[in-house]
């Protein structure tokens, strides 16, 4: 690991200023992703701004919803009584990711900012437009079993690895950020970006902007929810495909409202709006779930080694909807 300047500011203003002054300056929170990337030489910071002392750890009710401080750990968020009661989908998704130790370290803000686990991104001997813009994409004609089905470009076919973000996309969360120019809100669907011609950019944060909190809207999906993650082993692995499903059901078994998002298939959490529109107002039947799953697959494009996802993804959507709809 190369030497870096280490600072530990006590307030957000100083932290943002400190980051803005450095060319290769990075905020450090839980470190579960950044320290790993530094060890591998994928990220080589000149300055580390340790933000662990900033007062951003609280989880508190706000205007009908819930505010998750950026420095609350993944465990604190998953186990919080308000999250368990009103946002069980989020709790399920968080606990489907990483391990207990990592969830005790990783933060809400850091989870949003974690980098892809594409092996070509980690391997300094391989081309990767995300790590070294202009060098090419090793995965495109390489071993692309874990890679995207949707929204990829010929510059990058990597996927976002987060489980938490899939649930936050489904729940219409809002990311609160603060930068040199002040504070602003970013809708969750606008936070992560597609690779396009600039795969080195994972999200829409401007330079020096700090994630302060994630706001959850008033609880709407408290019962009929499920997070289904399919992976190579039964726990502690990144998703091949994952699905966050949330249903608001009438007494007559018809669907009043629904949210669906997929993980492991795109450069950002992949919200299934066309499937949602199809299901709204329809009865919660297996046949409708199957049709919704087929709608979700429109526009999917597989590569040499991830063809299996074309079948796995709709099956996972169907199963997630079935389990969510039968929760009692």
């Amino acid at each position, binding site marked *: 690991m190369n030497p870096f300047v280490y600072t530990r500011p006590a307030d957000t203003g100083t932290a943002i200023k400190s980051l803005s002054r450095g060319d290769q300056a990075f905020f450090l929170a839980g*470190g579960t992703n950044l320290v790993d990337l530094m*060890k591998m030489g994928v990220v080589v910071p000149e300055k580390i701004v340790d933000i662990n002392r900033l007062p951003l750890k609280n989880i508190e009710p706000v205007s009908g919803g819930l505010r998750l401080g950026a420095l609350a750990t993944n465990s604190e968020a998953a186990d919080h009584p308000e999250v368990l009661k009103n946002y069980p989908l989020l709790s399920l998704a968080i606990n489907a990711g990483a391990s207990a130790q990592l969830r005790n370290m990783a933060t809400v803000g850091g989870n949003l900012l974690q980098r892809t686990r594409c092996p070509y991104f980690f391997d300094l001997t391989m081309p990767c437009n995300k790590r070294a813009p202009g060098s090419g994409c090793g995965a495109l004609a390489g071993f692309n079993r874990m890679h995207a089905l949707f929204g990829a470009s010929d510059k990058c076919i990597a996927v976002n690895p987060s489980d938490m973000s899939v649930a936050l996309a489904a729940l219409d969360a809002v990311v609160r950020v603060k930068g040199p120019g002040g504070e602003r809100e970013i809708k969750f669907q606008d936070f992560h970006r597609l690779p396009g011609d600039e795969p080195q950019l994972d999200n829409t944060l401007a330079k020096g902007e700090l994630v302060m909190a994630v706001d959850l809207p008033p609880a709407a999906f408290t019962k009929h929810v499920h997070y289904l993650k399919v992976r190579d082993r039964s726990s502690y692995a990144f998703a091949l495909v994952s699905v966050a499903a949330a249903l608001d059901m009438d007494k007559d078994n018809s669907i009043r409202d629904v949210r669906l998002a997929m993980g492991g298939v795109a450069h950002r959490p992949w919200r299934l709006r066309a499937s949602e529109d199809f299901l709204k107002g329809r009865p919660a039947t297996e046949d409708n779930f199957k049709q919704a799953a087929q709608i979700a697959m429109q526009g999917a494009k597989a590569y040499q080694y991830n063809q299996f996802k074309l079948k796995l993804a709709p099956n996972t959507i169907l199963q997630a909807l079935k389990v969510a709809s039968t929760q009692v």
Partner: protein
Amino acid sequence: MSNKHDDLQDYKNPRDESRRDFLKQSSLLSAIALTPGAIRRAAENKWDEKIADEMGKVPLSLEVNGISYNVKIDPRVTLLDLLREQLHLTGSKKGCDRGQCGACTVHADGVRINSCLSLAVTNDGKKITTIEGLSRGDELHPMQEAFIKHDGFQCGYCTSGQIMSAVALVKEGRTQSAEQISEFMSGNICRCGAYSNIVKAIQEVKNQQS
């Protein structure tokens, strides 16, 4: 109890000096080979003191197994390397060094973490517990006793991490079923495959406590 160990040299165990010192010297040489111009020039001119200055050490106070330490360290040092290489607490193991195996699991302020992914400086003011801090003198922790009784290991390399994780797991209350134990112990890999015996050991400790 809170003994002060401001000077880490005092804490050195003379028995394992030669091998560890050799390893440290050789890793220092490789570190020099990898660092930028200024440090390399200093090294070539044998300005050892200047190397230390260039490294820009950071003060750090923390408590490990009830003992307070005040040290100055390179901010690149992980908590695991601080424990093993400077405090000579080698019970916490380095497996993958990337947060994937769990061999380095310790408790920081009572919660289990991967010490290999935690920069030591970020633990300023924290209370760390390692496997060395689990027993009371010669009296083993119930989880240690249970691992021995149920043969919860073969080669033993992952065992200290497994035990630290297991102690935290019981405290977290994630022991409702064998499936839940497996799920919440999944951050600790055992390549000998002692998993079923580890689950039995955890269940025994849980039953003792309930």
